[in-house]
């Protein structure tokens, strides 16, 4: 099966949108402002409608300009309401965008009923039709308009990212430092917001408001669970975005369903995998870590108990249930772990500390008394042959 040029164009647009969204998305996630993308993607509706009323042309660049302005206006309004302190932060977002969206819906129903500008298209986008609206230079076919629009947005994003990478990085991670270095966090903030608005506006025509949110947040969130380095995180976000865009296209093709929806599903699938399996930060690794921590604390409790008691009846393995309040299974696995690590010896059913167990316990007591958690962790590496 060979791909038609329309299919290639759709995938190309989807991939470019994914890259363009991943760049500001990474910073939004890191700055804990993910939902501002949701707000902007909805509240640009009135901007588009006003632009349309003024130009009567759906493909006019004025639409994009007005929409981007409404996006920035949204951010300013949200921040204004936050600053009054009358409501908590997220409430401000939740108040502003439905109101602006409602205004947009009402304007459409009052004035633009007869043209092709409906709310469905704005919310959901339709990538399938994107190759139909082409840009012609004289008689020359220059390709789909959306491809050009998102291409320009992407170039702007990349150029600004390269130019202001240092500023973005420092203001994101250490506002205090950035201010003392003479960078302006406020300027960077509004710059980022403007770029996010422009990116959302440039993308939503192809993929719709909700998918823009998905493409901004989900790849960046997945990447954040895999790395601590900003550069790596950007690369991962872009990779996840592009993969989901292409895979989502084929999923949609197979099911004959909405491309935007299918791309979201693929993004969700990628996130689910990372959420479950990410090394060190995924769900499974967290559960494992918690279990191990619990075992190791139990072992330490057991050793301290032995350390404190010379009486044989206190050191009887059968008595652990009574004294430390463990069930049999727990007790036997703790004893097994202690044996494996050569911390205790068993004389019949009586447990006593080995020399290694004695030194370990003494050292541990010192650290516990001084409340030095980190040292305790390092000690586990030195003494344990088998970990919990």
């Amino acid at each position, binding site marked *: 099966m060979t791909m038609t040029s329309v299919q290639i164009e759709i995938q190309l647009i989807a991939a470019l949108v994914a890259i363009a969204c991943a760049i500001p998305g990474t910073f939004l996630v890191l700055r804990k402002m993910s939902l501002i993308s*949701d707000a902007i993607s909805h509240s640009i509706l009135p901007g588009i409608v006003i632009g349309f009323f003024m130009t009567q042309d759906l493909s006019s660049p004025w639409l994009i300009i007005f929409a981007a302005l409404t996006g920035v206006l949204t951010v300013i309004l949200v921040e204004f309401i936050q600053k009054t302190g009358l409501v908590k932060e997220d409430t401000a977002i939740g*108040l502003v965008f*439905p109101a602006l969206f409602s205004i947009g819906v009402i304007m459409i*129903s009052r004035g633009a009923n007869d043209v092709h500008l409906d709310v469905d298209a704005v919310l959901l986008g339709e990538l399938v039709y994107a190759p139909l609206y082409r840009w012609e230079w004289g008689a020359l076919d220059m390709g789909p308009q959306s491809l050009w629009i998102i291409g320009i947005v992407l170039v702007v994003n990349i150029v600004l990212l390269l130019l202001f990478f240092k500023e973005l990085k420092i203001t994101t991670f250490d506002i205090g430092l950035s201010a003392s270095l003479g960078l302006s966090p406020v300027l960077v903030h509004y710059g980022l917001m403007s770029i996010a608005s422009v990116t959302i506006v440039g993308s939503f025509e192809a993929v719709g408001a909700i998918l823009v949110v998905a493409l901004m*947040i989900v790849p960046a969130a997945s990447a954040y669970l895999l790395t601590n380095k900003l550069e790596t995180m950007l690369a991962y976000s872009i990779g996840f975005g592009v993969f989901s865009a292409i895979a989502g296209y084929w999923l949609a093709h197979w099911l004959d369903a909405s491309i935007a929806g299918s791309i979201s*599903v693929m993004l969700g699938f990628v996130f689910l995998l990372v959420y479950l399996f990410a090394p060190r930060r995924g769900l499974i690794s967290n559960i494992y870590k918690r279990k191990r921590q619990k075992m190791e604390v139990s072992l330490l409790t057991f050793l301290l108990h032995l350390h404190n008691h010379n009486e044989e009846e206190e050191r009887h393995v059968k008595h652990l249930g009574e004294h430390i309040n463990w069930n049999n299974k727990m007790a036997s696995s703790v004893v097994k772990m202690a044996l494996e690590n050569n911390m205790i010896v068993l004389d019949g059913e009586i447990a006593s500390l080995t020399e290694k167990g004695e030194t370990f316990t003494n050292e541990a007591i010192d650290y516990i008394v001084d409340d030095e958690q980190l040292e305790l962790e390092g000690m586990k590496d030195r003494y344990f042959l088998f970990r919990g």
Partner: protein
Amino acid sequence: MSFFEYLHLLFTDYTLRTTTLGTAILGAVCGMLGSFAVLRKQSLLGDAISHAALPGIVIMFLLTGTKNSSMLLLGALASGLLGAYWIKGIIKNTRLKSDTALGIILSVFFGFGMMLLTYTQKLPNANQAGLDKYLFGQAATLLTSDIWLLGIVAIACLIVLMTFWKEFKLMLFDPDFTNVLGFDTRKIDVLITTFIVLAIVLGLQTVGVVLMSALLLAPAAAARQWTNSLSAMVILAAIFGALSGIIGTAISATADNLSTGPIVVLVSAVFVFISFIFSPQRGLLFKEIKIWNNRKLLEEQKTLAFMYDIAATHEDITHPHTVKILNNFQGFTKKTLQKLVVKEYVNVNDNMWSLTKKGYNEAESLYSQYVNDDD
């Protein structure tokens, strides 16, 4: 359409009556529950849940083939709850913050719902028309049975709120203390989250996915400005919500091409706007007035203190001076001088002023006040 015509229609027209009743009950329920969402800093949970409910509706339709709204809402409830708990799971188990968790669930669930919806649209013989109404809401499609459902949920919600009022209140303001007292905070949390999801799901048919969150938030945010008491806030929010529903429906009924959902949301936004500006304790207007009054008072005191400095250099403190020497003092205006005269701190004769005994003492106490503050 005049007001009386509207009233007449309200009692004779089936659609207007059910719609008005439906939006009013919905507004009241959302207002009540929204108060808890707003105070628990979960304002945007509603937005995420309303989007997350979509796949449940479509899956229910695919499974049963029915368009019976209560069946579909059951599916919405299930997927809304799943979304809500997954959000909690993401926040608890990873280092992602609540905003990102909300955004992920919102967009992925909604995208999944859209994929399923477009998939069903292309299935042969599947008459899915009518599912889209959950996207944008169509209050006019409310039936008497829907009103009954809303009413039952409203009453259930009221009973639960009153029964567990103490627990809810405690948990809202001090979850740790609630735990220590021996209440099972997880159960209380499940209860309130379930009711919030239920209210959102019921609202989908009326105002749609996008605008549902506003109906939950706006009345509560408005009510918050007028009171510091939880019970008063819940009642006020319910009233604001119901009024938004009634007024919004009335406005949309008077004109063609005005869907009810957006109008109801805008009416509730007006309530928020008015509350933000005019609420007596927290409102922006009164805050401005307070600041303005303080500034005026400060100018007056500064002038008085300046006069005191001059008067203190004379043995007779009531010795008159020309007004001119005050002119290059910043903060001095004819008005402040006039005010000082009214308060009997200063006497003015022609172009001469003199401090009264009362004014002198006032200025002196002003000084000692500042000195004490410094200590």
